[in-house]
């Protein structure tokens, strides 16, 4: 099981949060305000959660995602989007009833190159494709040295994770 990892970026009004690996924030109990902070970002138009590389997302991390969704309710035209491929992760999203608060995408993101060949879709779906594409571009640009306004959030989440790792190592 590889180490969980969290990245966040905010670009062109799209907030992207990417969770990879085995994400556990078990001992973290203070994420509500963080979710609120995300929702109050000036110029926020879309939220995209990328779980394509996540193998496991624990209940605290899922709770955080839910809180983000609750916090942006009524602020955005579209509900936040979650992209997930791993069947276990999709199953957890189902069990948690996330479909009510998120647009759940099961299909892997299409690479920009092959997007041109897609058949015409309705405006709504087209908008969705555009959003995903935009998020995808942001993710592509997202690097380890990505220093944006959400770095503190990522630091906090990562810190919670390492606290957890420490607590595991020391008892």
């Amino acid at each position, binding site marked *: 099981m590889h180490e969980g990892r969290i990245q966040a970026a905010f670009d062109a009004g799209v907030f992207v949060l990417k969770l990879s690996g085995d994400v556990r924030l078990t001992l973290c109990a203070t994420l509500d305000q963080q979710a609120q902070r995300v929702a109050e970002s000036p110029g926020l138009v879309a939220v995209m959660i990328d779980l394509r590389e996540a193998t496991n997302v624990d209940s605290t991390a899922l709770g955080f995602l839910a809180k983000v969704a609750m916090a942006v309710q009524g602020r955005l035209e579209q509900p936040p989007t979650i992209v997930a491929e791993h069947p276990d992760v999709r199953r957890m999203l189902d069990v948690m009833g996330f479909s009510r*608060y998120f647009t759940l995408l099961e299909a892997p993101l299409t690479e920009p190159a092959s997007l041109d060949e897609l058949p015409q879709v309705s405006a709504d779906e087209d908008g969705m494709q555009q959003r995903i594409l935009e998020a995808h571009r942001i993710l592509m640009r997202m690097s380890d040295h990505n220093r944006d306004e959400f770095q503190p959030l990522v630091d906090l989440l990562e810190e919670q994770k390492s606290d957890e790792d420490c607590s595991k190592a020391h008892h």
Partner: protein
Amino acid sequence: MANARTLIGLLDTPGASRDALASLIGSGQFAVLATTSVDALPDDVALVVAHVRAVAREDWATLAARWPTIVISETRLDGDLLQAVDAGLVDYLVEPECHGDILRRLIARSIEHHRLTQEHARDRQRLAELNESLETHLAMLRLDQQAGWQIQRKLLPASPITLHGVRADYWLAPSLYLSGDFLDFQRCDARYSFFYFVDVSGHGASSAFVTVLLKYLSNRWLTQWRQQAAETFPARCLTELNRELLETGIGKHATVFAGVLDHEQRYLHYSLGAQMPMPFLQVDREVSVLEGEGPPVGLFPHVEFPTYGCTLPERFRLWLCSDGILECLGGDTLDQRLEALKHRIASCASVDALKDGLVLGDELPDDLTMMTLSGFDHA
């Protein structure tokens, strides 16, 4: 590094040779105090340069123990030189008068070494003290958590406990000291009993606090028990718990399975929130999965909790496990692990039997709880 005021003690018999040595050493950054006796050296001497002829053999060890000491001699064949080195002298130099520069460098280097050695010793001492204090604090915290666990255990029902011919057995293992898993089985009246099985998100103390709140709430619900509402009672409990958790704002949510057993009609009324894995119903060797789905409790406001029901045979066994069990089963995917669990349960007749077949390390990654309700034929 030695500074301009560093005082060097010079032990040698008085005379021209000693004077020459003193000026050799003192020509740089050192001040020199020349004497014939160890006792005449003041405490602030940083290092001693001693000539073999000025110190008795038996005094070398004492001298070396007190100061970093460089021994000098006119000839390498001096037997006393070996004695001195054996006694722990830091360095020696033969014909010092021809090697003034070397002598001064030796002195500077020895002082620096000595300083580092002392620093190391101080650091080790500090670390040892720090470590001891950490150990003490850790032991205190552990005791504190263990005391908390004693309290939490008192809030749980006896295991086993039998009500109206239905027996509950359970095994609850916290990942740390306190558990975010919780359960209860209580009598409502002569016909009904109520049970619930909860896994609060996260684990440890913060999740355990929620279980205390839950115990308090469930006792309150039971005081409001109305027989005619048996069917909707579980869903109402979940609705109320959902509201309490959201209003308290503790940022914790939970997966819950709550049920009311009708011992007269042999029927189970239940409601659930994000329960995973779903409860298994074992009748003879047949194991089936209870159906239903509901939102997690304490995460979303204004959600509806469903009401389900199922008829129970005269002999049944209901199995509830927290999701911690999934980490102790073989299989690469969730479905495989759920299948493995179902398969295992089919050949188990008790909580202990299921527990014994699991891969349990010294440390559990998550709280792990399993419970069975069996009946209706228990005395």
